[in-house]
């Protein structure tokens, strides 16, 4: 009974997915290369040709450093297939810092806008252009109408949008967004790094990431670390256990053997 029930549910899910997709072409995905994350995402990876929301907490909503680093790492595998564009209101993005994370910052096209309306205009224009693989944008808020427009622009040529929610320094906090047209929403904060045993200083950057909303997927929460050795092959983000120390060391040993 339970087996047939599961089968019926699977059939229904397929039908719903077909209806939802409509005339759209089935979207490509960018897998993280780790089943614990990929299984939560529809299609087994970050859906391309959609736009995603990255939010932060506390002072990070003003500084936006962790979110920018995480967004850049999501966009990095896409940089090979086309141009990457970064739309911002404050030009405090530091290209050498992006490069030290392995992001091709010298090919990144940066766009500075004056206000929210211009930011959304530039984002929509960039997402709908041929030859653009990914667009990162820093905006305060994307309401439902704007989000729908961004989604339509994404579908034109299959560009992927990564919207970092960031408010101006000292500005009043906006109310949290209730609905959104984004495919996923990630809540990102920086996490304590773990230098390799016996070495002084800081370890590779590490993020605490929660997948809060995901269309056709499941939410989850993980720790990611910057994967130094990922040049072109694996994803530049590597999942690490939440608590450090011996578990990390074990994970590293396994990886080295493999």
């Amino acid at each position, binding site marked *: 009974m339970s087996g047939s029930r599961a089968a019926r549910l699977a059939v229904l899910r397929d039908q719903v997915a077909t209806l939802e997709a409509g005339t759209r072409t089935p979207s490509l995905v960018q897998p993280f290369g780790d089943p614990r994350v990929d299984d939560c995402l529809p299609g087994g990876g970050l859906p391309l040709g959609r736009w995603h929301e990255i939010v932060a907490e506390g002072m990070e909503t003003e500084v*936006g450093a962790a979110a920018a680093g995480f967004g850049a790492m999501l966009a990095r595998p896409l940089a090979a297939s086309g141009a990457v564009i970064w739309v911002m209101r404050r030009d405090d993005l530091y290209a050498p*810092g992006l490069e030290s994370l392995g992001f091709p910052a010298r090919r990144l096209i940066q766009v500075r806008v004056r206000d929210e309306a211009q930011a959304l205009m530039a984002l929509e224009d960039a997402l709908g252009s041929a030859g653009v693989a990914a667009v990162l944008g820093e905006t305060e808020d994307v309401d439902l109408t704007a989000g729908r427009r961004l989604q339509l622009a994404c579908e034109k040529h299959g560009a992927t949008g990564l919207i970092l929610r960031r408010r101006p320094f000292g500005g009043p906090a906006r109310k949290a967004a209730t609905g959104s047209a984004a495919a996923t929403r990630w809540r990102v904060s920086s996490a304590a790094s773990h230098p390799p045993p016996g070495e002084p200083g*800081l370890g590779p950057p590490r993020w605490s990431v929660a997948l809060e909303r995901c269309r056709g997927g499941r939410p989850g929460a993980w720790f990611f670390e910057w994967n130094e050795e990922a040049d072109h092959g694996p994803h530049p983000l590597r999942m690490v256990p939440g608590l450090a120390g011996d578990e990390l060391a074990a994970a590293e040993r396994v990886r080295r053997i493999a």
Partner: protein
Amino acid sequence: MPHPGPLRGPVPPHKGEGALALLITDRGVRRLYALNDAARAPGLFAGQKATDAAALVPELVTHEADPDADAAALEALCDWCVRFSPAVAVDGRDGLFLDISGVSHLWAGEQAMADDLLARLCANGIPARIAVADTAGAAWACARHLPSSSMEEGPGMVVRPLRRRVSAIGVRAMPSSSPGHGDHTTTQPSSIEEEGFPYPTLRAFICPPGAQAGPLATLPVAALRLDEAAAAQLARLGLTRIERLIGLPRAQLTRRFGPQVVLRLDQALGQAREALVFRRPPSPWIDRLAFAEPLSQLDDLVRVAGDLAERLCERLRTEGRGARRFELICCRADGKAFPVQVGLSVAGRDARVLTRLFAPKLETVDPGFGIEVVTLSAEGVEVLSAAQGRLDNSRAAMAEEGVAALVDRLTNRLGEGAVWRAEVVESHVPERASRPAPAISASVTAGWDPDRPRPIRLLAHPEAIAVMAKLPDDPPLLFTWRGQRRRVRLAEGPERIAEEWWRKPVGDIGPGFVRDYYRVEDEAGGRFWIFRAGLYDDADNPPRWWLHGVFA
């Protein structure tokens, strides 16, 4: 006032058929506009009524003067003179100014250059007088008023290092022997009064640098480009030569004759500046639409912009060219003009793209009572081969074009400098290590040093932080940034970066301008780039701590 006629000197008789004059209608009266020597001999003069002249000299041959054609011919001559100097200005009805600063060495000297110019003008049937001097005023005076005898001793002059040399050509022309096409060959019929001067024997007059006062002194005051009233008043008071003017008290000169006399004198002597309006050949890449009924709707303007772009781009396409900048000028019925510019990052000629770029900018045009004329001009025109679809890799080429078009759209809408790409600068100072470069550029240079960790956000101005450190040279244990206290969990450093001493005055160089950077991580996982400016052993300037960036 009777012209002293320094140019007449030993004038050989004009070998034309006889008295010839050009007529113009001035306020309903036919007057002589210009006349030749044969006509002047019996006492005719320019400005005389034609009926009086005909009564005096019944055999006078007259033709209609055409000042517009003269002006057009002079402008054509001006454009032709660009072969001698890029800066050529039209002077009145019958003269040209050439700024020959730094050009004459191409002819091995000013004398050779001026002689070449003179020979070429003569070969074209345009008699001329040329003078070279430091100032436009002195050159003008010498070219028009110097006795011919001085011009003949020109070759003795030597070429000297130049400051600013202006060559004035007093172009003198006269109708050729067949007056039928006089209008085309004459550049200035007005100066027939100077006709027949012995140009083959004259050479250009070269005034030694800084010595314009000498030749000027003996010239009549009319050589100062004064208006008639001032010149007549000066002559009435017996001030016929410039030398007598130079010694007079300037305040009284100004009071009696107005500021113009002193200004012209100073300009001729090089004590006052004078701006010449140089003529530039117009861009041939221009198109224009005029409307009997003025336009006021935005939609109409956009359509007109599209039509003009279509026409101009078609011309560009047939010539195999593209342009980088386009300017649309909307001329309003009341004489105001509204220019609208768009720029392209890659030379192009796609009318549809141009129209899309112009459309949002046309909203700023205030049509008022209506737009009468719209012109579109292209600048930065360069050769652009016809685009051909490539068999291989055609998608990549398409993608490149898409990004270039996007950059154009964003640049034109957000402004110059709003779209860029980071470029490496060889500098250790963090805020100088990266600079904006054009978003579409072919070369991507070598990257930054990957061994030096750099923050992802760099604050434009480092922010002061309050710190607590165990030892003076240690990274801090605690710091407070923007009102939040953070306990440092991990730290690494220091990386010492000294300011670039060669950019500063000597007094600002010292140990106080050294920055020691530390990477620190607080207990919540935030990673920061902080630095200490200065050293602890400097008692006068205790070191201060700053936060410069935030890591991902």
